């Protein structure tokens, strides 16, 4: 049984979308910052674009626990 199924609570729209919105925000920062400059902007860009991939790895790792 999944953890969510163990509790009868229902998540609000805010709760459902807060993490996806943050991941989207980081992705957009990543997409834009490398346009604006080089050096630090590139580093910020790589970090931002890595966030969605890190979220996938995190979800895989969580499932194994």
């Amino acid at each position, binding site marked *: *049984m*999944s*953890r*969510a*199924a163990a509790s*009868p*609570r*229902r*998540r609000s*729209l805010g709760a*459902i*979308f807060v*993490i*996806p919105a943050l*991941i*989207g*925000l980081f*992705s*957009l920062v*990543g*997409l834009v910052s*490398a*346009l*604006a*400059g*080089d050096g630090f*902007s*590139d580093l910020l*860009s*790589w970090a931002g*674009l*890595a966030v*969605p*991939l890190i*979220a*996938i790895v*995190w*979800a*895989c790792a*969580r*499932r194994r626990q």
Partner: protein
Amino acid sequence: MLARVQYAECDLVAFSGGAQVHMSQSTIQIWSWLHKWSSLVCTLFLLMLCVTGLPLIFHHEIEHLTGEEYVMPDLPGDDGLESLDTVLAEALASRPGEVGLFMSFDEDRPVVNVTSGPSYDAPERQMTLMSLDWRSADFVPPPVEEGIMAVILQLHIDLFLGLPGKFFLGAMGALFVVAIVSGVVLYAPFMRKHDFGTLRVSRSRRVKWLDWHNLLGIVTLAWASVVGLTGVINAFSEPITATWQATQLGEMTAGYREAEPPAELGSIQGAIEAVTTAAPGMRVQFVAFPGGLYSTDHHYAVFLQGATPLTKRLLTVGLVDAATGELTDIRPMPWYMQALLLSQPLHFGDYGGLPMKILWALLDLVTIVVLGSGVYLWLARRKRPVRALMAEAGA
């Protein structure tokens, strides 16, 4: 959109054995119809675009690996640059009967690229690209534009069908964006009872893939939307450019409407100097000759870029009378042309070094899994109605 409808909620509760969903059943069905059909129509083409896009991300690296890199020779005692009129004459001498169409300049080495064609309005496939050393007007190897990478690129751009193929793929990109939006709306009822990142293990294969589809789709939302939208904009580059030519270029050259095109073109070196004098501190990116899509019948159009990384992508256009060599007008390009210019890096992912390209490729692979799992879920879903799947998701 997400209004509570009491009877529908009861209905879904009955179906799902306790799961309560805010969206009315009919709202869900409209969005899932939209998601199903927008995805199904575009999926095959999107898979092709993702698969061909993967090597294209690294086309620069692949061409470096397969081709021999040309090293610019030292020219002792001669560090001056040749006149661009000389460079142009040398290039055109190798293409008898052809005319110059574009001239562009490499950023990191003294190389001039000349595009020629049989006429001023020649289509792209009849154009020839030549590269010359700006210091000596000698030929240097042009950028590799043939072989398997060129085939992949053409497939990705227009399916070998020219402009209609480009517009078709643009429409498929627009459907992809509709699929993303409707997918985000459907994400809510599926995730009512689950934490972000839930991947259920002890369930049917279909539920497993549903969880993966939801997770991978929602985390790549921003990236896929940007790459999809900029792809659509790039697909319509010709009509966007034609609009700019008809409006801004038309306004800038209102006095030329009745004039005959010049019989003979004046100095291109002089044209560039006329524009750079009027816009000090800017760099010439390329020059379009009279008669093509990027200029008027009477002018050299000289495109200037700014000096900083951001302004580098925002162009200013200076028009020089091709007969007299005098500057007619100089203006920044309008917002929709700047949007088109920015859509290129944002679609290609080539503006943040190799790490960005690797991230771009990984996100592309994730998108392939989203597309593939979507098709699988549709095939599996046909056997059982959507409400049953929804019920299972909330169970």
